[in-house]
């Protein structure tokens, strides 16, 4: 993790939701970085703050979300300190974004052409004709016939729309593309196609990706490194394979155990007991304590923080304060018997 090479560096990011009921810290002290060309995944169950992190990078939050602390360094510059003009220029040109569902991220009343042109012409000093020819190239890249530029979004199928969005994200050749659950609304077959396409494009253009999903299997398949979030905190960061094979945080383990396997013997899986944390009632100590099999006294009092427990493998869990062993199934069943 060399500081110099990082394209994006998020340091101690805190985001609050300011509501009538009180301030909710939806993202708490999150730090990670993404190297050029890297695919970094953020996983975690719904409401853990993944999208909130993603929105912070382009500063897209609107009320009640409020970035209260931290830095987002992009190529060494703090995005959070940008003026409105700087921000406008930064967005999309440096960092573009694919949203949760393609159905809703294209403007239904504008022709696709317009949605390409406006972004191209807003950032680059080109004529409309040039913008259109660029848009046609982009459509070619995602295997959509350029003639369809004059169509409206509703005339495309879900998968095609998602590819359109991807084409738009590529328009300015950004260095980073944030993908917030880009395929959740799609069928597995379409999902796979799109991810393959993205991967090809990444190889071709060399951008980095921040990839968000709660499908751990998919993430492991697609990402280089993965961060696992729980209740607004980053609880584990590690290379994809190692997080899958040897999770160091009980939550990561539980998440892994929530996906029944396609192969092998059928056995009863338990998932993670209890409910996700209500952010209005954050306990003292570890946030995962109420659902954790390994909870001990320390967890109730002392907050956790990310520590590099193995090479490139960071986790925030008191269980590892002494031992470094990954969680194993035997251990879990042992704990249960106690």
């Amino acid at each position, binding site marked *: 993790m060399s500081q110099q090479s990082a394209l994006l560096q998020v340091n101690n990011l805190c985001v609050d939701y300011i509501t009538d009921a009180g301030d909710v810290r939806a993202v708490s002290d999150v730090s990670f970085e993404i190297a050029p060309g890297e695919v970094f995944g953020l996983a975690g169950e719904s409401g853990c703050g993944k999208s909130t992190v993603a929105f912070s990078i382009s500063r*897209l939050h609107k009320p009640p979300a409020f970035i209260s602390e931290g830095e987002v360094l992009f190529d060494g510059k703090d995005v959070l300190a940008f003026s409105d003009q700087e921000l406008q220029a930064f967005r999309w040109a440096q960092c573009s974004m694919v*949203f949760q569902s393609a159905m809703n991220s294209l*403007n239904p*009343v504008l022709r696709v052409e317009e949605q390409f042109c*406006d972004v191209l012409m807003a950032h680059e000093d080109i004529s409309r004709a040039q913008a259109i020819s660029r848009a046609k190239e982009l459509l070619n890249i995602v295997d959509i016939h350029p003639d369809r530029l004059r169509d409206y979004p509703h*005339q495309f199928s879900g998968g095609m729309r998602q590819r359109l969005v991807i084409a738009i994200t590529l328009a300015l050749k950004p260095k980073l593309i944030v993908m917030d659950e880009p395929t959740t609304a799609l069928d597995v077959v379409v999902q796979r196609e799109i991810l393959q396409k993205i991967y090809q494009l990444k190889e071709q253009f060399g951008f980095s990706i921040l990839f968000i999903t709660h499908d751990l299997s998919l993430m492991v398949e697609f990402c280089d490194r993965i961060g696992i979030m729980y209740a607004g905190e980053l609880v584990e960061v590690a290379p994809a394979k190692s997080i899958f094979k040897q999770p160091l945080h009980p939550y990561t383990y539980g998440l892994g155990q929530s996906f029944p396997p396609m192969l092998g013997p059928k056995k009863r899986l338990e998932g993670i007991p209890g409910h996700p944390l209500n952010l209005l009632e954050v306990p003292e100590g570890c946030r995962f304590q109420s659902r954790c099999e390994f909870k001990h006294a320390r967890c109730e009092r002392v907050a956790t923080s990310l520590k590099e427990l193995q090479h490139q493998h960071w986790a925030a869990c008191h269980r590892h304060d002494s031992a470094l062993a990954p969680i194993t199934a035997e251990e879990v069943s042992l704990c249960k018997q106690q």
Partner: protein
Amino acid sequence: MGFILRRLFFYLAAFMVAVVINFMLPRLMPGDPVTAMLGGRGAMMTYDQIEALRQTFGFVDGPLIQQFFSYVSSVFQGDLGTSVQSFPETVSTILGRAFGWTLFLTGAGTLLAFIVGSLLGILAAWNRGGWFDSIVSPLSLILQATPQLVFGLLFMFVFGVTLQWLPSGYAFSPELTPEFSWLFISDVAAHAILPVFTVFIVQLGGFLIPMRNNMINLLNEDYITMGKAKGLSQLRVMLNYGARNAVLPSVTSLSMALGMVIGGAMVVEVIFNYPGLGTVLYNAILARDYQLIQGQLLVMTLFMLFFNFMADILYLFLDPRLKHGGSA
């Protein structure tokens, strides 16, 4: 174009219903127009004379169904009968003369309300919770909940009578003859200010609030966020991404609003002695000029249908999902 066809079919049906209502109403009512018209002089008239008058005014006797068909056939020939009060003027002539003024008054007032209301609505939504929103939005709603009659009387009283800043009657100064000259047009405009403003102010909330609410809902849509993420200017996101979509439901209410305004403008016309359909109807009602009343209701319905049709077309133009066979 199935959409348009469907609408046209509906309009025809609506029009027929209006025709039936129109036909039935006066026939359900007591008294007859000739007696009403003759008023105090009835004593001097012989039965023959009243009958003769009845004939001249075109009252058909005979079975109801026969009356109905003769009514329908004349309606479709554009013959709405003869006004009793303005005999021998035909209803069509009278309405034709007034039609343009009402079109102008309601059109200008509502269009203005639509444009200004929508813009203010967008601004209010964009700065939701700010001072602008928390003053303008409830205020416009309050204005909307106040009868046009109140504003009409108030404006008339303040600007027309007390301050005498603006003319408080007529469509143009009586001395002028209608012509296409700057003098005449500016005169018409001056005379239109108070009534148009009355129509405008009451309509404002009707467009502002829905626009604001639509827009607030829309601001949570992904494509708005995407617009912002694309680094487009605020204005562009606000108009091209927000307003373009938020305006759609408003277009529907535009056509509805016109319905209200046609009724409302009536009161305004009466208050400001504006020579539109409203004044005609009002006087026709006072004079119990049944033929004129009937024709009027029909024309007003046509008016509504026309505006609805315009709104449909506008909708089609604004929402591509309709044109291309989507379902919206």
